């Protein structure tokens, strides 16, 4: 659905814009807040019915669809626990992150 995708960003230097002119940014921040987490969501694949409630309420939109269940992208999941609270089938539990 191309109309629903962002237009590509261009390099201002390639367009002849001096680097000292006006503060602009055309590179996307690569930050991955997954390391903020102290609790991690774990999805019980047997209980997941793919209702997408977790996806709907996830503030960072880190819920990704798998063939038979919804999974969590742990690179961006901040561990807030909303998905576990809201899941109508109790398919997500929060477990403690262990160091390393």
């Amino acid at each position, binding site marked *: 659905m191309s109309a629903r995708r*962002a*237009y590509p*960003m261009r390099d201002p230097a390639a*367009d002849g814009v*001096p*680097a*000292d*002119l006006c503060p*602009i*940014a055309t590179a996307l921040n690569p930050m991955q807040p997954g390391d903020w987490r102290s609790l991690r969501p774990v999805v019980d694949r047997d209980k997941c019915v793919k209702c997408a409630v977790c996806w709907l309420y996830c503030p960072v939109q880190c819920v990704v669809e798998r063939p038979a269940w919804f999974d969590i992208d742990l690179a961006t999941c901040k561990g807030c626990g909303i998905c576990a609270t809201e899941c109508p089938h109790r398919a997500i539990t929060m477990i403690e992150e262990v160091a390393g």
Partner: protein
Amino acid sequence: MTMAVREAGTAAATRPRHIVCEGNEAAALAVAMVRPDMLSVYPITPQSSLVEHLAKLCADGRMDAEIVDAEGEHSVLSVLQGAALAGGRTFTATCGPGLAFMFEPYWRTPGLRLPIVMALVTRDGITPQSVWGGHQDAMTVREAGWIQMYCETVQEVLDTTIMAFRIAEHRDVMLPVNVCLDGNYLSYGAARVTLPDQAGVDAFMGERNINWHAALDPLRPMAVDPLTGGSGGKGPAAFLRYRKGQCRGMQNALRVITEVHDEYAARFGRAFAPLVERYRMDDAEIALVTLGSMTGAAKDAVDEARAAGRRVGIVKIKTFSPFPVEALAQALAGVGAIGVVDRSVGFRWNCGPVFQELLGVLYRLGRPVPAASFIGGLAGADLTVEHFHAVIARTAALLGGDVPDGPIWVNEND
């Protein structure tokens, strides 16, 4: 009120078109000739007739521009920032309290490098409550980063307003411009002016590309003005880079203002000094430094003083920001005494703001030149030929070592 006049017995199209109009209308007519996209307006004395003229030009179909009647000056300039970031050529006008209310977007505009042009119909500062002319508003914002050019005549208001767009949009400049016209004397003063031809202005203006450097355009996504700075990482150096770039744009403007004035003179046959004007300075022993519409009376006074044998000249500052340090130093190189006439007050140094700036130029001269600060024309007061005779006499006294230790208040005994 436009009073277009055709030369009797000639075809109007082949002769320059003279009209009689006030400075506020001259600015509006100039704006119409550069074919702006967006105007945003809010009325305030003594600027109001300017925005009324803009509205009338649009209503009559003589100007094809969007006109946004915003709910205050703060929004006026904000609307224009949005329009400029979307690629529009923009104009507005304000003065005094309106400028103060506009200050938040005002001091942001240069950093965004938006070539917005704004007539600043100068007005003295409240309080005391005043609706009359004076340069206090413009002087108060002189470090905000706008280019500021002061006009002497109604004709210069018209021509400078056209040139201002070229200067602002020049790729080596990309800064907003205030065309300063003295409240009352130029805003409402009507005089004979000559209009340039529209085809000539179109050719002079060339192609517009306002937001080549920073755009709010879905087809060209970018973040405009992300947070920049901090105390670690790349931020502080990046902030410094942009600040230096802004300073570079201001310095480039000295050259571009000169080039644009030269080109305008070549195309339309009207030449104005771009940075400073030297009037009868060749063998001048004393110099007056003036700004804006007071200069005409000063010139008449100097002619009379010259006729009486006094070697006096005038250095008029047109471009006040960026401050034309070198041009002023050259113009004043040979004089023995300087009298600076300000139409506003510098509270910190107990002198006029232009005088205060001039002190820096004197340092460049490398020799001590006695100078006096005259302050007059506040809140609409007249600066007459007689006043300038007194200024000339007092400045001449500097040659004999009679240097005042404070400002001389010109209208004190009117």
